[in-house]
């Protein structure tokens, strides 16, 4: 083996601490980046595997009239792998131990058999065997404490039919459980039920099926045009066979699927955004460690250069050294990434309610992470080596301790010195900071960076909670939103509502679903909401323009690229936009009630009311009372909507929570490492102090002052840096999904910075112990000979 190769291996071994630091930091960077990126692939796999295993439909054909299922024959179509049919109705159910009514998609399926398309996983119990038995969705059963053998009541018109629950199932059609009435996820409020086909047909007087589910071969799914072609082709065939007109809904248009796409899409953004933050932090930590490792070899570099070693040879030597450490770090990072990915995906699938996929290593994120982390580490190694190899041999062989050039006291000391003069043991650390400003700044920034991951993750939670509070405390101040089946006079609604005990305030509103003309055969369905101009229950947070006339939500304005003063166009009218408002999730248009009544010719009629309730009233009783006096289509409870919004990004929240934990680990490790490295790089200074007879207290003072300056300055810089990074993270994650202002609660800063300072103090103590235990004789001998 070549001498220089032996030197690399031995130097790595002799400087175990430093070498291990570099390996750990690189392993952590690799593990985090690849793990987070892999979790996105894993989540996608989890969904795809479930959908494939359970033969989720590619398209659902619906009919308003009964279809004779025996006439369905798609066997001649090679694109179709499976076809099935069912009767689907939307009703409501009640369970025995509460008086609530839950929206229920109720399906009639063949008894005793699993569906051939859009199957379910039987988690507990058995399949149905007779008309009095049903299967329920498992998460609903768990959250409402429904046991096997329980009785539920299904509303069939005005009659309630009792059914016995014999099985709990997981269905890929109901992961987000979008309420068909509100269009929002409603995990607690939607109760999917499966019953015997004949029973459902009889109960709802529907002698046939009304849904045909078709699954295409996998290769067809790769191209939208191909899918559209086959959907149309199969539709034509079916319509001919069953002799009825069918509507079709492709899987990607199903509300639950769209929620899933949004959630998984957010995961992808999460992976990239947090992955980038991790790399940024790692960049500083790796640079700090590698540059210090190589700088520590300064004397040997000078010797090699004096012996005739070329700059290139020396650069190559130290690049290899740092490069080898990087490779080891990356190799350790691979299994670490698997662990992190497994942890993230286990949490995610548990919350979302899908089966955990079998674990595997994903090549793309591994290759990406390896290239980035290794590339970064190699680049840093080469640049650091080039820099040190460029020092002349004469300078390199002089002790770096001796060649530090001082001209004068730093300005801080000169200013503060006017107040009181500094003892030498106070002046030493202050002058050290200002001696090598670049090095000091790097150390301080590395410390700041260590805090970023945790503050970014906490910022997301804080910003989300703030956005929810702001939306439901400042903008939408009502507790319930009532939609009527038909327009009714405002006065009638107001009078009847105010007569109900428990209702505090009430206001009218109108809503209408419209199609926005976006030009070039393009349109977008949206809603117009109209509240009284002086409404106390619905406010707008105007960000552009003014709060009068037509106000468009910010999300909608961004999507259709509309500005204040421009017009939105409908099929038969246009409206000039007067203002753009920050809205949490709404992509709607708002206007004063009287303007909408005039525009629609509704007179004094309204289509809905919003109410606030007195403290402690029974919401169910209020709803029952309202339904008994007014023609109610649906009542949307604000607290349920809040939960639904949280459900919308539940997967993302699971990941963020894990990120907070990982961030805590990162803070601890990187802060500790930065402080220890900084102290150990000044070992010569402590040798001098010790040889002069310095007490332990004085040594601790010198260590503390410089470390505290680094830690505190780093923490202060971390505040605006965290805000900047958190803002980028949140905007990247929430773009198009929600409008969220970046908020970092003081407690989040306190927690992150507190953790960093605790880690820093631990590092100070560890380094202090090392310093006071230095063997003076050996250290002086080493220093002289080096």
């Amino acid at each position, binding site marked *: 083996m*070549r*001498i*220089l190769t*032996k*030197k690399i291996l*031995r*130097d790595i*071994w*002799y400087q175990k601490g430093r070498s291990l630091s570099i390996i750990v930091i690189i392993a952590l960077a690799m593990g985090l980046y690849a793990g987070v990126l892999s979790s996105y692939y894993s989540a996608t796999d989890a969904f795809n595997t479930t959908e494939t295993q359970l033969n989720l439909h590619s398209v659902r054909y619906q009919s308003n009239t009964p279809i004779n299922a025996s006439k369905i024959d798609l066997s001649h179509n090679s694109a179709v792998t499976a076809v099935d049919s069912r009767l689907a109705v939307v009703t409501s159910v009640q369970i025995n131990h509460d008086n609530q009514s839950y929206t229920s998609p109720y399906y009639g399926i063949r008894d005793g058999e699993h569906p051939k398309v859009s199957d379910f996983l039987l988690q507990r119990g058995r399949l149905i065997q007779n008309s009095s038995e049903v299967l329920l969705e498992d998460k609903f059963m768990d959250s409402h404490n429904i046991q096997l053998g329980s009785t539920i009541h299904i509303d069939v018109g005005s009659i309630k039919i009792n059914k016995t629950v014999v099985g709990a199932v997981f269905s890929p059609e109901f992961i987000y459980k979008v309420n068909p009435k509100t269009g929002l996820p409603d995990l607690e409020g939607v109760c999917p039920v499966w019953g015997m086909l004949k029973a459902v047909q009889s109960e709802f007087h529907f002698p046939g099926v009304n849904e045909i589910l078709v699954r295409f071969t996998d290769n067809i799914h790769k191209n939208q045009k191909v899918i559209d072609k086959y959907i149309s082709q199969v539709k034509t065939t079916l319509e001919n066979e069953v002799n009825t007109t069918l509507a079709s809904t492709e899987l990607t248009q199903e509300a639950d699927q769209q929620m899933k796409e949004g959630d998984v899409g957010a995961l992808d953004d999460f992976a990239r955004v947090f992955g980038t933050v991790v790399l940024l932090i790692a960049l500083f930590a790796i640079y700090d460690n590698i540059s210090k490792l190589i700088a520590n070899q300064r*004397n*040997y570099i*000078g*010797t*090699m*250069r*004096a*012996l*005739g*070693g*070329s*700059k290139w*040879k020396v650069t190559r030597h130290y690049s290899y050294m740092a490069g080898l450490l990087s490779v080891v770090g990356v190799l350790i990072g691979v299994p670490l990434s698997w662990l992190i990915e497994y942890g993230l995906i286990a949490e995610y699938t548990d919350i979302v309610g899908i089966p955990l996929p079998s674990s595997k290593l994903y090549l793309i994120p591994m290759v990406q992470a390896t290239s980035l982390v290794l590339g970064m580490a190699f680049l840093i190694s080469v640049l650091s080596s080039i820099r040190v190899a460029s020092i*002349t*041999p*004469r300078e390199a*062989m002089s002790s770096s301790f001796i060649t530090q*050039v001082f*001209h004068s006291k730093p300005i801080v000391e000169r200013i503060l010195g006017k107040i009181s003069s500094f003892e030498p043991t106070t002046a030493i650390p202050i002058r050290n900071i200002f001696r090598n400003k670049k090095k000091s700044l790097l150390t301080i920034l590395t410390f700041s960076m260590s805090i970023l991951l945790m503050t970014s993750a906490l910022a997301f939670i804080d910003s989300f909670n703030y956005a929810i509070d702001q939306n439901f405390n400042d903008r939408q101040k009502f507790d319930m939103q009532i939609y009527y089946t038909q327009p009714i006079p405002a006065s009638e609604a107001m009078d009847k509502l105010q007569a109900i005990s428990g209702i505090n305030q009430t206001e009218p509103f109108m809503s209408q679903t419209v199609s926005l003309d976006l030009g070039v055969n393009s349109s977008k369905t949206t809603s117009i909401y109209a509240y009284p101009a002086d409404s106390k229950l619905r406010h707008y947070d105007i960000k552009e323009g003014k709060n009068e006339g037509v106000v468009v939500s910010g999300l909608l304005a961004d999507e259709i690229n509309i500005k204040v003063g421009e017009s939105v166009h409908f099929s038969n009218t246009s409206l000039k936009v007067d203002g753009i408002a920050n809205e949490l999730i709404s992509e709607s248009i708002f206007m004063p009630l009287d303007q909408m009544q005039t525009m629609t010719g509704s007179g004094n009629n309204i289509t809905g009311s919003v109410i606030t309730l007195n403290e402690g009233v029974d919401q169910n009783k209020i709803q029952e009372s309202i339904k008994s006096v007014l023609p109610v289509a649906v009542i949307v409870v604000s607290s349920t909507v809040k939960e639904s919004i949280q459900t919308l990004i539940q997967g993302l929240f699971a990941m963020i929570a894990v990120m907070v934990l990982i961030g805590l680990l990162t803070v601890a490790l990187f802060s500790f490492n930065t402080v220890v490295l900084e102290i150990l790089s000044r070992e010569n200074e402590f040798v001098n102090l010790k040889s002069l007879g310095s007490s332990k207290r004085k040594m601790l003072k010198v260590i503390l002052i410089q470390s505290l300056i680094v830690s505190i300055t780093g923490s202060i810089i971390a505040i605006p840096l965290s805000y900047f990074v958190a803002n980028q993270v949140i905007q990247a994650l929430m773009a198009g999904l929600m409008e969220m202002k970046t908020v970092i609660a003081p407690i989040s800063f306190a927690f992150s910075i507190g953790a960093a300072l605790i880690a820093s103090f631990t590092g100070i103590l560890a380094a202090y112990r090392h310093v006071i235990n230095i063997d003076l004789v050996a250290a002086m001998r*080493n220093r*002289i*000979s*080096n």
Partner: protein
Amino acid sequence: MEKLETNITSGPIIELDNVKRVFHVGEVEVEALRGVNAEINAGEYVVLLGPSGSGKTTLLNQIGGIDQPTEGTVKISHVDITHFDEEEMTKLRRKTIGWIFQFHNLIPSLSSMENVQLALELMEDKENQVERSIQALEDVGLGEYVDRFPAQLSGGQQQRVAIARALVKQPTIIVADEPTGNLDKETGNVIVDLMLDLCHSKGITFVVVTHDPSMAKVADRVLSMEDGKIVDSNVLSKTIKE
């Protein structure tokens, strides 16, 4: 780089003409060498003697190829190296000059033999590296210590390894900066005797810096330095002996 004549056995091998070296430390200028003129012949054992701060080490650095003068010329084997670029200076140190430092500057993670072998590896001289390294160690009396690490050797032994390292590449010139400065008198004498022996037996030109007049006694010539100038370049060694 101009080819240096490596077979000069007599006549000047080192020529210094009005060599000046100024260092800038912040706003302060330090004139370390203020016009040095000297010639050193091949095979001579020359000592640069002077008090601390007289410019001896700075002058040695000019001769040893790790620094260049601000003014004047330095010739090695009749080749002006004053304006050599970095690569040429490196080649000079690699092939022509051997260095011995006050603090030996051995690599602690390499054994004695490996420290010596390092010099050959840096020269990319692959021929019989191990054998030549062992021979060099034997020449300095450390044939039995080939596998010892620097921390396992005494100060004198470490310095002898450093001499072996300088010797192994068969340089034309060996420059030594206070080679005995870190050693006790007895050990220092051993080192000096070794260097003298090598000088005379192998014909290597030695330029040795010291502040200790007793170390200068054995030299063929002593160049006394004071305030950046050579104040006496006669064969003072005889005078010192007398």
